[in-house]
């Protein structure tokens, strides 16, 4: 039994060490960082954070990221809901294969697709908008959302649908008023994964934006190359990117472990 | 093979039980004889599954001891107790064939391959699985899977007891009675202790030699099916066993005679009824008949159950009395009288059979 507790503990310590180092560095002055290794800040400073919160090029990066991540999460889940319903309730031509082909979209190397994406979104006039990034990210989020939602939906008996129709619900009335509340946990988990993959992706987000919708990650890389070696500032920016994710996972923590193992592979 | 003794047993799921209601299982002393067929019967939430899990070792009781042949097993795990259990929903090892499923408990105990093979064949024969031995277990129907569960319990010839936790829940109704009689037959053949948990009185009564009837965590009556039917210790037993259940009619005692309104009723236990408490007469529909004299009633409904009819009557004070009539009997159309067989008519005080046990 002791080993059972030891394994997760050691693993979590391993996960926390680099994060601690980042946190540690974000409270140091540049001089202290470059001066050598110290296990905790000798001269504790909040200056790096003050810089970020007072400079719009910095904090707008967070706002932009949050905007397109939110749009993406809503679109991905909204589109995945009816599709997952179809997979869980109907048999139709090609149903066994469609899911795999959806999943193959994750295989496209973003590095190569960046340029065509740039051309495509420029052509339709969406370049440097939040919507562009949100739409691009649906590419890899929709298949995952479909998979997760389908698992939850398969746990709801079909008789519930029939009862609703018999009571007089139209399909959409049933779907929105009865079915979606029933699988709320699944929607929560799907939204978590969509948020996660959209929040952390950089390459497409950077390619599809320049000023108006520039994500925080892009601000960071540009800062890294232009203003030299301001490690403390970068560390503080990095720490702040963890915060929204931490909030999201805190809210869905109780759903994570439930049920989504039951679905289609 | 073992005699199982429950000594001052009790269980509460909460850490510090105060009220009697906090106990999922009230105090219980009982002995399961070696080789007997027992049923734990009661409505859902009566504590029967808790008791089953304590006996099998999946749960450690908060109080008391479980003894196997006098040896204290209270804290030992299921493996040490050497028991077998069939669950409500079939548990099978999906990736294995039927043969591998049956062999699994023996393989885990390092039994030689030749012996395993012989045992598996024998058990497959007994449970009608011979033709499916090399099929994948996950492809079988629910009753097939339940037979595998059963087979895994039977395959070890040294198990102390085989436990059944509502094993027919997922079985199609028209297959239920087949599997039910199969279980009974297997018990007769292998002569091993079996404990069967159910809410279904028919399953319990047909399977068991002795039935433990439970309610709200406590045991209400332990007895043979005949005892439970003919001599219920509590009105709950009368209601729960039998379909329809026992009729209950409030009465008073006038000396040694029970009276329903103005009608004197001959009862078997009149002499032992002590004064005080709420008194009721209990009489099963099977022991009620139409008569020229007796309790005046109106016939309100006749339901034909095929091989007999259930007649519903109402007394002058508005009490319902049901009785069974054969298809050949004449059923009076309206006002008539009922007679009760005195040998099976008893007085209950505050629910308990007057003059005995807690009704004394």
């Amino acid at each position, binding site marked *: 039994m002791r080993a059972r507790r030891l394994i997760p503990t050691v693993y979590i310590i391993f996960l926390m060490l680099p994060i601690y*180092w980042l946190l540690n560095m974000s409270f140091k002055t540049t001089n202290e960082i470059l001066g*050598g290794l110290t296990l905790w800040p000798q001269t504790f400073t909040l200056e790096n954070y003050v810089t970020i919160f007072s400079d719009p090029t910095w904090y707008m990066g967070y706002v932009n990221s949050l905007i397109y991540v939110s749009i993406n999460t809503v679109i991905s889940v909204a589109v995945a809901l009816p599709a997952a319903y179809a997979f869980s309730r109907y048999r*139709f031509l090609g149903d066994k294969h469609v899911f795999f082909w959806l999943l193959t979209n994750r295989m496209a*190397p973003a590095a190569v697709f960046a340029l065509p994406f740039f051309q495509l979104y420029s052509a339709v006039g969406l370049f440097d908008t939040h919507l562009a990034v949100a739409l691009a990210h649906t590419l890899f989020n929709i298949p995952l959302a479909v998979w997760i939602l389908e698992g939850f939906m398969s746990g709801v008996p079909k008789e519930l649908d029939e009862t609703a129709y018999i009571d007089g619900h139209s399909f959409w009335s049933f779907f929105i008023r009865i079915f979606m509340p029933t699988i709320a946990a699944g929607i929560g988990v799907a939204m978590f994964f969509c948020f996660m993959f959209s929040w952390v992706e950089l390459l497409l987000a950077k390619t599809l934006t320049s000023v108006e919708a520039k994500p925080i990650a892009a601000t960071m890389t540009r800062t890294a190359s232009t203003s030299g070696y301001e490690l403390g500032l970068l560390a503080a920016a*990095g720490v702040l990117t*963890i915060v929204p994710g931490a909030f999201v996972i805190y809210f869905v923590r109780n759903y994570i472990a439930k049920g989504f193992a*039951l679905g289609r592979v | 093979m073992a005699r199982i003794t429950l000594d001052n047993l009790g269980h509460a799921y909460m850490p510090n039980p105060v009220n009697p209601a906090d106990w999922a299982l009230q105090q219980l002393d009982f002995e399961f004889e070696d080789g007997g067929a027992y049923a734990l019967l009661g409505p859902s939430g009566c504590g029967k599954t808790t008791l089953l899990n304590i006996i099998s070792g999946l749960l450690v009781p908060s109080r008391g001891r479980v003894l196997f042949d006098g040896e204290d097993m209270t804290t030992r795990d299921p493996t040490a107790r050497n028991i077998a259990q069939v669950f409500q929903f079939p548990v099978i090892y999906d990736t294995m064939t039927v043969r591998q499923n049956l062999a*699994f408990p023996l393989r885990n105990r390092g039994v030689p391959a030749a012996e395993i093979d012989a045992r598996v064949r024998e058990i497959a024969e007994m449970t009608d699985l011979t033709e499916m031995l090399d099929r994948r277990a996950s492809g079988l129907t629910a009753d097939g899977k339940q037979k595998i569960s059963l087979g895994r319990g039977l395959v070890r010839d040294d198990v102390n007891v085989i436990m059944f936790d509502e094993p027919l829940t997922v079985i199609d109704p028209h297959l239920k009675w087949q599997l039910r009689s199969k279980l009974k037959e297997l018990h007769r053949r292998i002569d091993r202790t079996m404990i069967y948990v159910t809410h279904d009185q028919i399953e319990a009564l047909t399977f068991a030699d002795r039935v433990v009837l439970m309610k709200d965590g406590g045991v209400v009556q332990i007895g043979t099916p005949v005892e439970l039917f003919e001599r219920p210790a509590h009105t709950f037993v009368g209601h729960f066993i039998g379909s329809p259940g026992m009729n209950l009619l409030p009465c008073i005692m006038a000396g040694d005679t029970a009276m329903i309104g103005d009608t004197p009723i001959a009862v078997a236990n009149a002499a032992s009824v002590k004064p005080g408490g709420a008194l009721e007469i209990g009489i099963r529909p099977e022991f009620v008949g139409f008569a020229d004299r007796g309790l005046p009633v109106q016939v309100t409904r006749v339901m034909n159950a095929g091989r007999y009819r259930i007649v519903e009557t109402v007394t002058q004070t508005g009490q319902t009395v049901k009785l069974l009539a054969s298809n050949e009997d004449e059923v009076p159309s309206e006002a008539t009288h009922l007679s009760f067989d005195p040998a099976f008519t008893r007085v209950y005080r505050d629910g308990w059979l007057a003059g005995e046990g807690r009704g004394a």
Partner: protein
Amino acid sequence: MRKTVNQRAWLFILPVLVLVAFNAILPLMTVVNYSVQETFGNNEFFWAGLIWFEQVIESPRFHDSLIRQLIFTFSILAIEIPLGVIIALAMPRKGAWVSVCLVLMALPLLIPWNVVGAMWNIFALPDIGLMGYGLNALGFDFNFTRQIGDAWFTLLLMDVWHWTSLVVLLAYAGLVSIPDAYYQAARIDGASSWAIFRYIQLPKMKRVLTIAVLLRFMDSFNIYTEPFVLTGGGPGNSTTLLSIDLVKIALGQFDLGPAAAMSLIYFLIILLLSWVFYTLMMRNEE
């Protein structure tokens, strides 16, 4: 579940298909287009047939990055999948600690990829990084910017740090969905912990593990930002994985044609391997 045959189901999938067509098929066609053309800059394109494909297939550079990629992918699968399963098995099933564990474990998944790279860069630097400094203090000669072995070690460690939790989450979800009766039956049958794992837990986790392997497999082929920020593909080309190489060719040298041809070949390789794996895993279903 009883499912009805209903071709109208396609209507429900239509929005998904429209988005996918827009996002995947149009860019894919563009890439295919690049791959069969020659460009001399100033937006002039000429039909080049299959020469880029021939060139790529024969080029040692392609072979090298393919081998590096395969080594990387199979290494992280070999580490992350078993490790994730072991950790999920060791996690508590209920109680307050479950939430704490899940939240902490999910944190690496929620950090932007360039931050992951930068974080590990700082963490592993021999002079100011805890890990780099620590390893040197323990007597190892560790410098991931100079030594190939150290660079690979850091790269793999970073990926394990980053993604093992995804496997843990999925495996854990699979584990908690196993009814108690299975464990009880196994205890009664006298099964060892290994037998419980082999015959109950592993089969029940099959579906989630299939998805976990597919996700990690596909995503590892596309990995770009983290290694780029961590090592920049170096020292030399020693950690130049597929995507880094592609970007070097496409944007660094502006050789769109060969880059496109190369990515299509890669795409087909992943597709083939994934399909074989998916089909094998699904063969026994239904």
